[in-house]
């Protein structure tokens, strides 16, 4: 069991074309027994971070400690970490039983004790039938279970999983997610899971650390990441389909406050709780007036069931600026609405994704699967202002 602390960790790779800064000033505290996922697109530095934790990569600067003990200069075998690799890394010329027993052998355990432990792990990982086979004859899922079993067998303080599901098909993935969740609950080990798949990260981890461009963008629970993403990248990366972003500026008209795009064709109403802050920003000079507003496709819903009714609002059938602003202004009291033209209606089984267009702005909404709108139809969409996220246009950081 161990608490892992990363303090100002940097990784710089020297290369022929100058230095590559793979991890920048990384700070993270992983509590004892916590399950943390490192999530980010490929090349964001998550694997470098993980390799520094296990000791396969030198730390350029900063400190990594386990339970307060600095481990920077310890060899991997001295850190008592176990790792499951993306490529499984099973020893091809050993049987499954030998693969599982390998870490025990080096620790000098005698044959009967090894046998007992191998049998126990084989039972947990459902490997009893294949103990005397060799890795190349196993399926991907079986190989992955062996790889996890080999990591678990010696009771590591820290358990690290590197993209372990990227080669499994969807069915196996679900089984594996369940297995991992159960394992974590039963063993209570500190686990770090590296992935580029947000579904895996959000499903498994107590906390998710999102990385991009060598920087830790945000570490938080799935709710925090979903509700209050630290910046535009996190808002965009977390959530499926991706969040809709609108470049807006703050418009004040007496006591009324609205967000409006450059040609005024689209307006959004921020929640009342943000009015004071936004009024202050609007009073400032320069860029402060410009914000990026974001709303998730899940938070947009059709105003009157199926949106064809809104065609009465704009007789021409196209979303012009007048109808757009009129709608949102008229709906004080109830939730505000946006009108837009349907571009694509994608049916995805238990839901449909509408791709909509308002003037030059394209965005998506998640609607019930039986929605029968067609291309070119104009619909009205309603949203709860509380679900609106606002980011500074310059720094891309969350402001409200």
């Amino acid at each position: 069991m161990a608490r892992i602390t990363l303090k100002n960790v940097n990784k710089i790779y020297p290369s022929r074309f100058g230095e590559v800064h793979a991890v920048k000033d990384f700070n993270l505290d992983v509590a004892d027994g916590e399950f943390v996922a490192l999530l980010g697109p490929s090349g964001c530095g998550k694997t470098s971070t993980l390799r520094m934790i296990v000791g396969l990569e030198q730390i350029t600067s900063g400190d990594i400690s386990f339970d307060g003990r600095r481990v920077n200069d310890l060899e991997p075998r001295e850190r008592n970490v176990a790792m499951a690799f993306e490529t499984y890394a099973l020893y091809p010329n050993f049987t499954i039983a030998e693969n599982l027993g390998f870490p025990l052998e080096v620790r000098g355990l005698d044959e009967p004790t090894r046998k007992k432990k191998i049998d126990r792990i084989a039972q947990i990982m459902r490997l009893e039938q294949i103990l005397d086979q060799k890795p190349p004859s196993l399926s991907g899922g079986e190989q992955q279970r062996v790889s996890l079993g080999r990591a678990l067998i010696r009771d590591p303080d820290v358990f690290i999983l590197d993209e372990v599901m990227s080669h499994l098909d969807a069915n196996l993935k679900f089984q594996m997610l369940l297995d991992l969740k159960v394992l974590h609950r039963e063993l209570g080990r500190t686990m770090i899971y590296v992935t580029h798949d947000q579904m895996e990260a959000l499903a498994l981890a107590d906390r998710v650390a999102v990385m991009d461009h060598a920087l830790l963008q945000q570490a938080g629970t799935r709710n925090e990441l979903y509700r209050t993403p630290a910046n535009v990248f996190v808002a965009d990366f977390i959530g499926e389909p991706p969040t809709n972003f609108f470049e807006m500026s703050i418009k004040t008209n007496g006591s009324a406050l609205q967000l409006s795009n450059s040609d005024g064709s689209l307006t959004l109403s921020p929640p009342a709780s943000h009015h004071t802050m936004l009024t202050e920003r609007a009073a400032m000079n320069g860029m402060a007036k410009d914000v990026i507003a974001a709303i998730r496709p899940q938070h947009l819903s059709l105003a009157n069931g199926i949106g064809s009714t809104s065609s009465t609002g704009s007789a021409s059938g196209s979303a012009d600026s007048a109808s757009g602003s009129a709608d949102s202004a008229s709906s004080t009291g109830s939730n505000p609405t946006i009108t837009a033209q349907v571009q694509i209606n994608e049916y995805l089984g238990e839901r449909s994704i509408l791709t909509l267009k308002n003037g030059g702005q394209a965005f998506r909404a998640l609607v019930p699967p039986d929605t029968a709108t067609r291309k070119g139809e104009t619909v009205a969409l309603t949203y709860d202002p509380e679900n609106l996220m606002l980011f500074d246009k310059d720094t891309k950081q969350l402001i409200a």
Partner: protein
Amino acid sequence: MSEKNYKLVKGLLLLFVGIWLCFTLFPLYWQIITAFKSPAETNLTVPTFWPTEWHPENFVSVFADPGNSKALLDSFIIATGNTLASLVLGTLAGYAFARFPKQAGGENMAFWILSNRMFPPVAILIPMFFLFDAMPWGTDSHLSLIILYLVFNMPLATWLMMVFFRDAPRELEEAAYLDGFTPLQAFWRVTLPLVLPGMVSVGILCWIFAWNEYLFANLFVGSAVRTFTIVIPTFTHGSQTLWNLQMAFSLIAMAPPVMLFIVLRRYMVRGLSLGVVKG
């Protein structure tokens, strides 16, 4: 492809292979029949293509000189000694180049080692003779040729082993480090078994080179140690060559590499196809 064309292509292929086999197998055929002929029959103006009388005793007479059997043994000691040395050095060097290229001197160093294999051996014949003459073991010893042949075999072994190690997945070693092994243990238990087929084929190549070498052996050794390659010309005396004995002795000398190849051919094929097709 139509049935007719297919047959035509197949026929042409068989024709080509037949002609090729005639060219390559004729010397071997000639060697075998000559080895069984009498001395008189080998010197006929119109040669016979099948021995009129078979003389298997030729294979015994070649050993009338006890030095001849010792020459085979000497060749075996030198070839085997050199192969082991090449494999040990080449494997370690190849591993270093594959895993720690920067510390091992980089690509340039690896190419320099390979280039040692490429210059004409005769260019270093004289300097090497004086160099080895100054050594405590002298030129006329097993050790001198075992070391000398490293000039040619070690670059080959290093380079090929480097390629095999590059193809061996690095994660396996990393997994072994995390499982608690030291780098040396991981190398020995995990990586080396993976490149074993490659090592066997490299070993065969080294062994055959050292077994067949004539130029250096002819100059370096000759009295205390004689390789079979310098024994073969001794069947020529003044105006006369004992062709039948020379061929019989050559056939005997061909046997070990052929047997080696047959026994290890499974490894050889796997080794040479390593890196070409990945499992």
